[in-house]
């Protein structure tokens, strides 16, 4: 597998050389393979957002270098041609509905592609298929985005990013504040983009269930450093460590942990609902309950 993104000893200091200076990333090295689904987790203020903003050249490293799809960003990179970095990297910010501004939904979705020089007709085409992808009815196209519900606005904003047809898609807590159904639809969309359109997906999240259900690679951050990388199974083996990182276990593992605490011999903690169900039916079949 090719690498889509690599960080080499990246340090980022906000407002360097002032009394306000703050170290947000410290000597971070990381490789994200092409067409992977990477989840970045860590407590608030651990440097997740700073990390992903480097991928889109919204921030430049204070030290070290970042390579994205063959292009290199170093502290010496000038601000002139950053647009080229961003064209192939789509970024969905937290509460992306805040970025809507156009008079109609379709115009807002066309905004991104047009900025990168796509013709009106092509942008419209891209916008329409993006609307379909996120599950927005075409009848909404001429409505004002400010007349829509919160969930629909979120979809418009995501469609606005997808219409640019990025190769890398960064999702920064894309489901915050959504209802359970909206949550599942957005996450399934990410999965679909990964599986069918071969996008490289980077998901910043606090939802451990999403991590085990969707991600192929997990990066754990703490105080501006990457403390662990691996599959979900490798990350969640040690509940004590997970809690120390101010994170949670996935709900299935949490449930199983309670069984363990009650004296049920669960063995290796199940991570998904399916694994948990299998494990419980196994236990029931073995008659391994502890009540008599």
């Amino acid at each position, binding site marked *: 597998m090719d690498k889509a993104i690599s960080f080499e000893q990246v340090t980022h200091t906000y407002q360097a050389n002032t*009394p*306000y200076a703050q170290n947000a990333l410290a000597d971070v090295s990381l490789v994200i393979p092409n067409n992977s689904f990477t989840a970045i987790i860590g407590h608030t203020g651990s440097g997740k957002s700073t990390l992903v903003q480097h991928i889109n050249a919204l921030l430049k490293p204070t030290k070290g270098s970042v390579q994205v799809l063959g292009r290199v960003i170093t502290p010496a990179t000038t601000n*002139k041609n950053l647009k080229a970095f961003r064209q192939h990297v*789509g*970024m969905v*910010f937290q509460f992306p509905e805040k*970025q809507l501004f156009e008079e109609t939904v379709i115009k807002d979705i066309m*905004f991104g592609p047009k900025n990168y020089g796509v013709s009106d007709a092509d942008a419209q085409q891209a916008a329409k298929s993006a609307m379909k992808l996120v599950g927005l009815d075409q009848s909404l196209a001429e409505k004002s985005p400010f007349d829509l519900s919160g969930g629909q606005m979120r979809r418009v904003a995501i469609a606005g990013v997808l219409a640019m047809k990025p190769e890398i898609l960064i999702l920064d807590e894309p489901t915050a504040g959504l209802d359970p159904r909206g949550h599942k639809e957005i996450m399934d969309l990410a999965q679909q983009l990964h599986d069918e359109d071969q996008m490289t997906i980077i998901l910043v999240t606090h939802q451990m269930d999403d991590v085990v259900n969707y991600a192929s690679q997990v990066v754990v951050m703490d105080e501006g450093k990457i403390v662990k990388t691996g599959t979900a199974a490798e990350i969640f083996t040690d509940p004590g460590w997970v809690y120390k990182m101010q994170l949670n276990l996935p709900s299935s593992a949490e449930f199983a942990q309670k069984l363990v605490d009650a004296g049920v011999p669960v063995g290796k903690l199940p991570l998904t609902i399916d694994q948990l169900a299998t494990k419980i039916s196994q236990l029931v079949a073995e008659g391994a309950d502890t009540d008599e």
Partner: protein
Amino acid sequence: MSNFLFGRYLPGNSWVHQMSPQSKLMLSFYFVIVIFFANNLASYAALAVLIAIVILLSGVSILFFLKGIRPLVWLIIFTVALQILFSAGGTVLWKWGPFSVTNLSLINGGFIFIRFLLIIMISTVLTLTTTPLAIADGVQTVLKPLKKVKFPVDTLALMLSIALRFVPTLMDEMETILNAQRSRGVDFGSGSLKHRVQAAVPLLVPLFTGAINHAENLSTAMEARGFSDSEHRSKYRIYRWQLKDTVSWLVFLLVGGLVLYLRK
């Protein structure tokens, strides 16, 4: 932008930080008035020495301070250049069309430059060492006498502190929106003037929408907690006049007298 200091607060525990906000506020006003009395090198030098001492006492490194106000110096230079080119009187040194430079306009321009610089310095020290909320509190204390003529001082102070409170929030939001639109391919700060004005729309519309939302949420929250502007409001933090304030005022008054003595 990140080096820009004007209007920002730097936490600390220096002499100037510890002074009470109302006294700092009045002292800054007083200093600005004294600046306009100075009219020769000696009197300006006295004020410059005073401001240098104030900066030292504020615990901010002088180099960092000067760097922080550098962006504003260009604004002053522009104003001074206009002043020099358009004022008349004295011996003409250079003339081109409506523009002329005379020895008097050069001297005046120099003094205006120093005057602006001193004003910017004292107000930067004020905001660097005083939290926005403390400034609002200071304004309230200073304006208290106006209550006698039924002027809504408390409401004004509340408005001021709410406005100041939301500056960092809106700055954060602007940063996020800037980044979001940048990643959608907007190029802020380059291209023709028309292009730049157009680029402001995707920034300003979301920013205003957000601000209005904040206002609505805040008013709901205030009402839910039973806010009413007719109540007498007590304060969590009370800023008292201290010895440091008295000493500072004595020094400033002394320098003020010195300026009156030194001026032509």
